């Protein structure tokens, strides 16, 4: 697939740049940041699709518990064996799919796509660098990532199946499930974390060291700032999870009791462990990464949104400096809010108050960023192309996701909402119609730079509108389900819980979920199927446009100011024909008295 990307005839004047290196050096063991970016992109898109398919099967099970999965039920049984006997999803398989859906989507899908793929391809171009600071470490980072992904995938097929303890892998549950899935999960995670660390070191070093002459900090495009902060989050928040992963691996393999308390009973018997460990410690170390990870998911998306908005409104982005300082503030604060995921662990009021306060404070810079984006639209002559549509949808969708998070940040309202579908709806609004829409925008926006052709505009719009509608149909009902008390991670969608509770209703017991709330499962299922179908135009468009998309007429088809568009298309090895020099800020659009409505950063003053 990478092969086709570069086989496209170039519109630039340069010669084919990879022809002499051979297939393996060019496409598999390449040290070129652009090839690595595309490798990351295709791999993570594949993982996104896999994670999405896991979810589809789960939605069937939730809506129709105990019924054979249509179409692929037989396949599941053939591949996975008894856990999918007669094509029916067992509870164990549901747990596996749930845990792996989260893991794959976050660690193998969105983060690699947002950070590694776009970051690798775009950041060096944007700052006017010939490559990343450490190209071989960059290659190693991708290979370790693939290895981690393979370990995760292989774990589906080992006896007992993949990890079942949720993507958060709380101990002692994660340690006490007798299968090897968790061990694979931990090894996979250690590899993925190592890959991110290599990537993060490389990104920060590149942005610090390789900025072109004249590219001062305040002339960096906001996308680069977003990636810079993201890299710091990965660099400093991931190691504690790596430490926690090593300790849980020791618990699992060497029989230690880091996270296993004294007197732990498994299945009614006292567990054969020394005890003395602390389950809370795992949660602290996990969420120390887990919360910054949210901003790892969202910051690159915000960066893409800023680029696309200013380009398509033909205006400078509003409040560039407040955007930069807000991104820095988010990065800083995101390290001291993590325990708002843990209000229900028996946390005292003083600590809870501290974390509530920081949680409310961190929403301020997020709101500043979103507000700046909205104000940027004001008075612009907006070009409604596909990337812009996705970005325009991002703004309110991310708004919904963010605002619904506030009740979860207060310990009092969190008591009711904790671990319900409300939480699921909240963070999916942030990540799915939020981040992933921004990533789609990025793909449509930078595709011409990567290939020399644009993606088909009509099918892009079809993809956008269908995704937009179905996305909301999938997640909006979950708010209602969650507020009426439906818990996450119930393999039958709450059917048994509801029936039991209804049977005991009265005498101080509140009844189960209403039939209406339960019937929403069916709507969500078909909306999810619709969402799946809506991705077909995108997948076809992506590959079809490689050869048949309309060729771009210049190196800068969007008439953009930033440096990545001032190179040949696609950029050759080493990127720039001659070292660029930067004369101005990143968003000089519609400067009064200027002949064109954009002034690229590298054009000298007259």
């Amino acid at each position, binding site marked *: 697939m990478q092969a086709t990307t570069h086989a496209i005839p170039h519109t630039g004047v340069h010669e084919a740049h990879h022809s002499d290196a051979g297939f393996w050096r060019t496409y598999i063991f390449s040290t070129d940041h652009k090839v690595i970016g595309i490798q990351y992109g295709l791999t993570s898109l594949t993982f996104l699709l896999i994670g999405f398919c896991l979810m589809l099967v789960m939605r069937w099970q939730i809506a129709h518990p105990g019924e054979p999965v249509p179409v692929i039920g037989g396949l599941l049984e053939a591949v996975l064996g008894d856990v999918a006997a007669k094509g029916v999803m067992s509870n164990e398989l549901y747990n596996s799919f749930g845990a792996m859906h989260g893991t794959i989507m976050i660690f193998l899908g969105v983060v690699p796509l947002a950070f590694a793929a776009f970051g690798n391809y775009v950041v060096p171009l944007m700052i006017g660098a010939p490559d990343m600071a450490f190209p071989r470490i960059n290659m190693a980072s991708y290979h370790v990532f693939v290895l981690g992904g393979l370990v995760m995938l292989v774990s589906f097929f080992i006896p007992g199946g993949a990890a079942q303890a949720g993507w958060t892998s709380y101990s002692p549950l994660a340690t006490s499930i007798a299968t090897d899935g968790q061990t694979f999960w931990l090894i996979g995670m250690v590899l993925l974390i190592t890959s991110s660390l290599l990537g993060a070191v490389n990104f920060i070093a590149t942005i610090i060291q390789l900025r072109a002459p004249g590219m001062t900090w305040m002339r960096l495009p906001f996308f680069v700032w977003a990636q810079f902060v993201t890299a710091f989050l990965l660099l400093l928040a991931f190691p504690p999870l790596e430490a926690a992963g090593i300790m849980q691996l020791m618990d699992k393999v060497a029989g230690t009791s880091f996270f296993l308390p004294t007197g732990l009973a498994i299945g009614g018997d006292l567990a054969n462990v020394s005890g003395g460990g602390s389950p809370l410690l795992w949660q602290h170390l996990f969420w120390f990464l887990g919360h910054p990870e949210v901003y790892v998911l969202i910051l690159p998306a915000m960066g893409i949104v800023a680029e696309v908005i200013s380009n398509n409104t033909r205006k400078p982005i509003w409040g560039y400096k407040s955007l930069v300082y807000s991104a820095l503030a988010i990065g800083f604060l995101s*390290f001291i809010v993590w325990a708002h995921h843990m209000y229900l662990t028996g*946390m005292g009021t003083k600590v809870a108050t501290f974390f509530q306060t920081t949680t409310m404070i961190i929403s301020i810079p997020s709101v500043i960023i979103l507000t700046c984006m909205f104000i940027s639209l004001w008075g612009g002559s907006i070009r409604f192309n596909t990337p812009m549509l996705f970005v325009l949808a991002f703004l309110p969708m991310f708004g919904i996701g963010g605002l619904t998070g506030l009740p979860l940040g207060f310990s009092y309202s969190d008591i009711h909402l904790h671990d319900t579908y409300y939480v699921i709806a909240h963070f999916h609004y942030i990540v799915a119609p939020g981040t992933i829409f921004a990533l789609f925008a990025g793909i449509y926006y930078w595709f011409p730079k990567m290939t020399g052709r644009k993606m088909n505009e009509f099918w892009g719009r079809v993809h956008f509108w269908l995704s937009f509608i179905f996305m909301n149909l999938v997640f909006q009902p979950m708010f209602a389900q969650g507020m009426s008390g439906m818990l996450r991670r119930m393999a039958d969608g709450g059917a048994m819980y509801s029936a039991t509770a209804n049977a005991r209703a009265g005498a101080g017991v509140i009844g189960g979920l209403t039939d209406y709330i339960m019937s929403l499962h069916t709507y969500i299922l078909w909306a999810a199927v619709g969402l799946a179908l809506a991705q077909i135009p995108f997948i076809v468009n992506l590959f079809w446009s490689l050869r048949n998309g309309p060729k771009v007429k210049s190196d800068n088809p969007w008439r953009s100011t930033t440096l990545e568009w001032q190179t040949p298309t696609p950029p050759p090895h080493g990127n720039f024909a001659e070292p660029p020099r930067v004369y101005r800020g990143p968003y000089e659009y519609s400067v009064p008295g200027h002949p064109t409505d954009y002034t690229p950063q590298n054009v000298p003053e007259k």
Partner: protein
Amino acid sequence: MSEKHHDEHFGHHVRRYLLVFYALLLGTAITVAVSYVPFTNHALNIGLGLVIAGTKAFLVAGYFMHLISERKMIYAILAFTVFFFVGLMFLTVWSFYDFPPLTITR
């Protein structure tokens, strides 16, 4: 730079490294010795041990790793790291000490 000047400079550095080396040896000896002093409060042993370890760490980082005369950029990176390191330690430990009263009175 003349060869002679170079050597002088070199000698100066080597003397400093050796001084740090002796200080580290001394620090190790003191740590071990102090740990055998039976203070009534063991916390005092722990505190002393950590102070000496911190001093030794400062010497290694400051002189062997040349942090004492490093660039601003490195300081900035490390300042962030120290902040988050302290946050991780302090907040985690704090939350272990703050929990609701375990006895329920009716």
